[in-house]
């Protein structure tokens, strides 16, 4: 997978997280996964289809999702309820929109699915056909992994 696909997502995540969380955000080391990998617990998924195809995950532990949602709502959210999920969905929406604008500018045309959230323990994701690049983003609220598996359509 080409690194140029992931950079817009990492930049957008960095910009949006800094803006909405008003906290220090650091980018970790990028790594590659081609087999199954565990997901952290609260994961927003966005599908892409067009010149490029694949999916992007915004993956975090439930405790991180709760503190992120609390910060974005300006109130303590203690359960991964409808509001928490709506908040994480909106976060994924904003990051994706900024990243996709950048990708469209450099000439890739594709459509997106609305974000879906899946939650649970001991889950794994397997991408048989596409390897995934992962960039961990460290915030004071915990780690959020941007996990991108995209390929050019043949």
């Amino acid at each position: 997978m080409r690194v140029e696909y992931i950079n817009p997502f990492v930049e957008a995540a960095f910009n949006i997280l800094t803006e909405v969380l008003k906290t220090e955000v650091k980018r970790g080391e990028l790594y590659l996964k081609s087999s199954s990998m565990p997901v952290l617990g609260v994961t927003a998924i966005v599908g892409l289809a067009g010149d490029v195809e694949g999916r992007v995950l915004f993956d975090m532990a439930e405790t991180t999702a709760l503190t992120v949602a609390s910060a974005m709502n300006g109130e303590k959210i203690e359960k991964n309820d409808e509001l928490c999920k709506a908040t994480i969905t909106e976060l994924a929406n904003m990051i994706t929109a900024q990243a996709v604008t950048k990708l469209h500018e450099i000439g890739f045309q594709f459509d997106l699915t609305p974000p879906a959230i899946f939650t649970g323990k001991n889950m794994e994701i397997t991408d048989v056909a596409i390897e995934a690049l992962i960039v961990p983003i460290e915030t004071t609220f915990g780690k959020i992994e941007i996990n991108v598996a995209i390929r050019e359509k043949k």
Partner: protein
Amino acid sequence: MKTKMDFPNINKRKPEGLKENGKPFRVLIVDDSMFVTKQIGQILTSEGFDVAGTASNGEAGLEKYKELYPKVDLVTMDITMPVMDGVTSLEKIMEFDKNANIIMISALGKQDLVKKSLLLGAKNYIVKPLDRKKVLERVMMTLK
């Protein structure tokens, strides 16, 4: 004992959400995200606006507007929504009330739809992420 009279309010700012007659501007929020609805609602109510109604898709927004009319001063309208999108809803509300004050709420990258909305009669737009300053600035620009 100190009473309120000891500290007269000087330079007290009138909340932005109140009209000249002291009554609040009435707002309809149309958005499929519970988070965004709550965020806009909190920002506006903190300035004295009255959130007269909310709707989670364009069709419900249109119905709600007709129900509230003429006691509705402003609509915030998300662009991407299920059932009926925000641009279609805007168009239908403008057909019903050509003086409607509608602000489009857009994610980045929807410039074409924002442009189309402005041509159809939207008074303004706000690009997400939303914050208090951005929302109040655009709302007041629209209402003045």
